[in-house]
Structures are given as structure tokens and as C-alpha cells.
């Protein structure tokens, strides 16, 4: 087990290094932050001074080596526009994004287990067909449209929940629904499909013939067996949502990382982009590491593979 974790940690390090390198190179290709800072009255010397201040005057390989050197010590530099440590800014906005993403995924998972099981058990019934059409809707409805409709109906018309903002549980509900609908639809379909597969297995028939209560069969035998595919999908979804929460964060004024990153990109604020890419890569890699370890816990055979 420890060898397994060590191996995974090493490859995680390689992935993170790769992501940070790619972001460093790409960011230099998309434009010059200094061009966005030029104001009337500035002289060429002023502009050169600005470039030197942010180390943008050195050749790119040199900039990269300098960046790596300080990044290893946890220093990602100061934000070009905000003058504060870039990593600190990213870490400050991380909890809001993690909260939103986790709430959306957790809600989606719990609901998907119930709805997916119902659909599988009542296969081809009216309920099953309705649920499956709804999942189709959930997978195809654009996220931003849903978010705006939620605001319009739930907040502006019925005054049930705040239209935007951050801080209390009631602020979390709408963005979590807007963000969680897609994974909910996907997970519901997955639970249903996997369950149908498991339900036709011999051991389920055996369990039934032994007279075990149907709900106990479902929880003990069926859900356990579909856990691995669920964990895989959730781990992938978590990474996708971390990056995909931008639109939801913008509409609901959620002070998360997505918005910080989008602002950084439009301002060409390289240090924030780099620190952000590092943190996202770290979170995604950690998630998949946790997923791998979870596999091993769920299915002992994986440990020895």
C-alpha cells in the first residue's frame, strides 16, 4: 500500500510540474500585461521600468527558471494588478469554490442514488421514463440559462432565496443547484445503468431467494458493487466542476477561484494564472489520488494489482 501511494505521489508531482510549465509558456503567448497598463502621459522609459518591475524584460527561459526557483519555496510572486502575493489570493478564493463544488456534487450524488435506484428498480415504468427524460434535460440545459431562470423565478418572483451573494447557507442553494444539475443527471443515468447490470447477476437472485429484504440487497450488494464506477466519475466531475464553476460563480457573485482566474486571464496577470493552475492541478491530482485509494479500500483486489 505504501509503495502504491509513493508511486502515485511521484507521478502527481510530474503532472503538476507539467501543468505549471504549460501554463507558464501559454500565458506568455497570449499577450502582454504591460500593454494593458499603459496610460496617457506614460513615457517609453516608464513602460520599460514597469516591465522590469515584473521581471518581464528577461528572456522567457530565464523568467521560467526564476519562477521555478521561487515557486519551489512557495513564492509565486506578487499579482501584477493587485500587488498582493498571488498564491495567497488563490488560496483565499479556494474555500468558496471547494464549498460550492462539494455541495453541488454531494447533493447530486445523494439524489442520484435515490433517483437512479428508483429508475432501475421500476425499469420501463412511467417513473423510469419520466426520470430519464428529466436527466436528458439536465444534461442538455445550458448552465447559465438555468442559473438565470433560477434567479428570476426563485428570487425575483417568489422571494424565496437571495439572488446572489455568499456567506449563509441560503446563498449556497441556488448556485449549488445550477452547478449540480449536470452531474446529477449524469450520475442518475450511471446509477441506473450500473444497477440494471448488477440486478441481473446470479448473486442477486441468490440473495433474493434467501429472503433478504429488497432494500438490504440494494444497499449491501448492489450499491457496493457500483461504488467503483461512481467514485471514478465523481473524481473526474470534481475536477471538471472546479474549472467549470466560472459561469455559476459569475452569475451568483460567488467569490471563488473561477472568477479570480478569469479576471487574471483577461488582465494577463501571470502570477495569479500560475498560482491558480498550480492549485487546481494539485486539487485534481489529490482527488484522483483519493479516488485510487478509495478503490483499494472498496475492492481489496486492486491493492495487490
Amino acid at each position, binding site marked *: 500500500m505504501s509503495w502504491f501511494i509513493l508511486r502515485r505521489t511521484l507521478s502527481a508531482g510530474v503532472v503538476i510540474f507539467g501543468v505549471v510549465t504549460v501554463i507558464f509558456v501559454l500565458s506568455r503567448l*497570449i*499577450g*502582454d500585461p504591460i*500593454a*494593458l*497598463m*499603459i*496610460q*496617457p*502621459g*506614460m*513615457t517609453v522609459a*516608464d513602460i520599460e*521600468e*514597469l516591465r522590469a*518591475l515584473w521581471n518581464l524584460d528577461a528572456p522567457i527561459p530565464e523568467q521560467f527558471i526564476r519562477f521555478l526557483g521561487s515557486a519551489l519555496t512557495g513564492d509565486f510572486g*506578487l499579482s501584477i*494588478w*493587485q*500587488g*498582493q502575493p498571488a498564491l495567497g*489570493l488563490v488560496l*483565499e*478564493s479556494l474555500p*468558496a469554490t471547494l464549498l460550492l463544488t462539494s455541495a453541488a456534487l454531494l447533493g447530486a450524488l445523494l439524489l442520484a442514488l435515490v433517483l437512479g435506484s428508483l429508475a432501475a428498480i421500476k425499469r420501463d415504468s412511467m417513473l423510469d421514463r419520466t426520470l430519464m427524460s428529466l436527466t436528458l434535460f439536465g444534461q442538455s440545459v445550458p448552465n447559465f440559462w438555468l442559473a*438565470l431562470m433560477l*434567479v*428570476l423565478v426563485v*428570487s*425575483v418572483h417568489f*422571494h424565496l432565496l*437571495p*439572488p*446572489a*451573494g*455568499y*456567506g449563509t447557507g441560503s446563498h449556497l442553494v441556488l448556485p449549488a443547484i445550477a452547478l449540480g444539475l449536470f452531474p446529477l443527471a449524469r450520475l442518475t443515468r450511471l446509477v441506473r445503468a450500473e444497477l440494471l447490470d448488477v440486478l441481473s447477476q446470479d448473486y442477486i437472485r441468490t440473495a433474493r431467494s434467501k429472503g433478504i429484504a429488497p432494500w438490504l440487497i440494494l444497499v449491501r450488494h448492489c450499491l457496493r458493487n457500483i461504488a467503483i464506477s461512481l467514485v471514478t466519475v465523481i473524481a473526474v466531475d470534481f475536477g471538471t466542476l472546479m474549472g467549470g464553476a466560472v459561469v455559476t460563480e*459569475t*452569475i*451568483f*457573485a*460567488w*467569490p*471563488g477561484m473561477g*472568477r*479570480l482566474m478569469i479576471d487574471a486571464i*483577461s488582465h*494577463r496577470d501571470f502570477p495569479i494564472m500560475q498560482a491558480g493552475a498550480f492549485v487546481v492541478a494539485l486539487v485534481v491530482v489529490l482527488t484522483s489520488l483519493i479516488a485510487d485509494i478509495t478503490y483499494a479500500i472498496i475492492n481489496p483486489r486492486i491493492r495487490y494489482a
Partner: protein
Amino acid sequence: MKAHHAYSLLKSAPLVASLMMGSVGTSALAAELGTITIATQLDLLTLNSSKNVTGWHRWVYRNIYDPLITLDENNEIKPALATSWERIADNTWRFKLREGIKFQNGEPFTAEAVKLWIDEGKKADSQARGSLALITEAKVVDDHTLDIVTDGPVAYFIDTIADRMSALPPAYYKQVGAQEFGLKPVGTGPYKFVSWRRGDRIVLESNPEYWGGAPKADGVVFWVVPDASARAAAVLNGEATLGTAIAPLEAPRFESSATARISASEGGNRPIWGGMMMNRPIFQDRRVREAVNLAVNRQAIVDRLLRGYGKPMGQLCATSMYCYDPAIGPMPYDPAKAKSLLQEAGVKDMSITLHAPQGPVAQANELTQIIAANLKQVGFNVSIRIDEASQFSAKLYDFDNKGKDVGDLFIYFYQGGPGSETTIRSLTNSKGNWNWQYYHDAQVDAHWDQAQKSFDQGPRQEALQKLSAKVRADVPWLFLYEPLSVWAVSNKIAWKARADDQIIIQDMGPAEK
């Protein structure tokens, strides 16, 4: 040198002071306004007022800090931290500062505090630097007298610092350093900083010790709501008192609302204009440039894209600027005349590339399509190019290659507002560092010089009017329109959009019943 007062400051100073003092003891009002929540489109980059002077920063700064000189709702210059000022030499201004004022941490306000603001603002890491480029030095004369030396005589100097220049508490600043100060600011203003959750909100509370009398609100919250329709919803729903930058598309939602209304400015501080590349053969003939102008139906654009919340232009300067000449009307829409001008010039099937950035110019796609259709009607062949904002500006700044990648006619904006003659000057002066269209005209340069040297209102106004008339006749620009500032206002308060787009809590009152 004869002492000289800009405008009629001394006369108005005691009046303003007495008005401010007059509000002492009216604490019943504070309860009535309660906490004002302002839903804004952008978060601040720093709370250090010397590092950024853009409008949305000054919304917040205006409460924590006081400006040296301010503007009233009609854009008239008024004293604030400075009680009076005079020009003591061609390039030197002397400011008398208000006495007996304390910073929120108890430090006394002195000339040193203003000098610190200027010195910090001129550092390379300050985004206020460009607007302070005129200043070469700030000299403390005594505790309440400060001299500011400019790079040559600059008549519009006072305009450029109004509502921008403020003061930093020297002892506290030295103790915490610039970086920390940007997170925990201390000023002389009516509201004290409480907290800043980045990307979410800045919370301020009333400063009962304020030198200008008790503040009208108990607290002010600047709440970042980046999505325009969410901002509208927040005000409609009563979660915010004021919403900035409301999309005209949202305005109808307020017509039937009992809780909130729309307030729009009379002019716009972010005009949209078109620059013709004057270094290319196609725009050498003035008649072609005029034809381009006559072909475009500004009113239709304003009605269609801005639902009427816009004002067609016919000159360089926008309504709220000192260089605006009300005698010059908007450019007429006259496609027939455009056609005959082109015929006269012997131009047929001329090809033009129309170029615009996505982002800085709102609805760039729709706008360029309408302009292209207008131009096609009079016989131009138009191709459209849309770029992402920083790609676009990189092409503009490619002075080494004479902007070869910029389209023949580019659509852009400029940051207007009172005191932004510097911007227009940078755009149109031969030596201007924003002269992306390579417009060189000796007369225009001479008018600018004259305006910069004329310290008396009359001759200066005259020089600026000549300038406006000359550029209108020369048509190096495709004059377009000023989008108005559209605000959502809760019916709980009385408030009107100002010409300078500032939000000043002191302007607000309880709703008139």
C-alpha cells in the same frame, strides 16, 4: 507673480464648509439611510488610493478618504481637504490645507500626508502613475501648505487631480508598508474600513469623528455582483440599494417595479469612437472621411443596441468634459450626401477593414455589423475583424510597424469624464502616446498647446473650442456615441446619477414620501 485663484474657489469654500458642518447633529438621518449596499460590477484591485484612480476604485475611496479637491454634481471644482490653491509660478501650484483634521487612526492630517500620496502614486507599481505624469515634485512648505510642481505650465492640472488626489497617514503607512496598507486602509473620510472579502464585499462603517459632520449612513457595503442581470435582480429584490452598470436590456424590468427604478446620466463617460488610420492612402481625402461619418446612422445604433440610453456624438469630447462644445451638434446621417462626396472624390468600391475589440467595446459584434451595413450602403466594401481586448491593444501599440495590423477603421472607447482632456490630448496630439491612428495636424497641436498654457478660463475655453471645431471639420474620427451610465436605484432612497459617475453617500437622502 500675481496670486491667482482658479475659478471662484474662495467664495464657495465657506459655503461648502458650512453646508458640511450643518449636518452635524442630524443623526436621525443616519438611522433613516441605514446601511447602503451598492452592487458593483467589479472588485477593487487595491484599497490604497495612491495606487489606482479608476472610477470604480474611487467609488470606494471617496468614502474612506477625502479628495484634496472635489467636484459637485455639475462638475464644478470645489475644495475638500485643500481649502484654496493658487499658482505661484508658471509650473507651481500652492495648496492651503484644511487644519484640525485627523485620520481615522488619530494621526493629524498634514502636507506630509498629501506628499506621501503623490510619491506613492508616482512609483512604478502604481496604476495611478500615468495620471500623475504631469507632476514632477511635491514640496512641503509647512504643516498645512504644499507646493506641487508640474512639468511646464499645465492649465488643466487642477481638473486632472480633482476627486483623485488624496492623503495617506504617514506614520501608519510607514509602520505597515504599502502592501499591507492596500488591505487595511486608513483615511480621513466619513467611513472607516471594516473588512474586505475579495470577490465578494467591502464593508465600511460610519466615522462619527468625521470632520465634515456625521455621515448620513451607518455603513456602506460595496458588493461585487459581476453579472448585469443579477445586479438588476439584487436591487429589484431589495438586497442592494444601488446597482451600477445596468444593461439597457434590463431597464424594462424596472418599469413595473414598485421597489426600484432606473436613473441614467445625461452624458456618458466612456464614449465609443472610430479611428481612421491616417497613415494609409485610403483616408487621405477628407471627403472620404466625411462620407464614412455621414453614412453611419448613430441614432439607430443608440436606439437598437442601447435601447435609447445613448447620445450620438459629433465631436471629440463627451458631454461631461470641459472641452465639450454644446454648439457642435451630433454628426448628421446623410447617406445620399456620403455617396455624392465619394463620387466627387472619385472613389468607387473602396475596401475598408473594420476592426474592434471584444470586451472594451460593448456588443462589438452587433455594432460592427451595423456600421459595416451602413458603410456598404454608400458603396464601401467592408470586412470585419474582431479581436480579444489585449490582442487588439497590442496591435494598436505596435508603433514600430505603424500599426500595420490594425484595421483601416478601428472602433474603441476612451475613458472620459471631467478632467480627461489628457486622454483626448494623448489620442489626437502629434506626439500623443495614444495617437494610434497617426493623426498629425499642426493646427490641432497648436490648439492643444494654447489650451495647456491658458490659465484663464476664457482663452482656454476658446482654444478648446477651436480644437473641437478643427477636428470636426477634419473628421479623422468616425464620431459615434456616448453610452449613458444606467443605474438601478432602490425606492428607499432619493438619488440621481451624476455627470462624473461618482457615488457619494452624502448626495443620498431618504425617499421622498
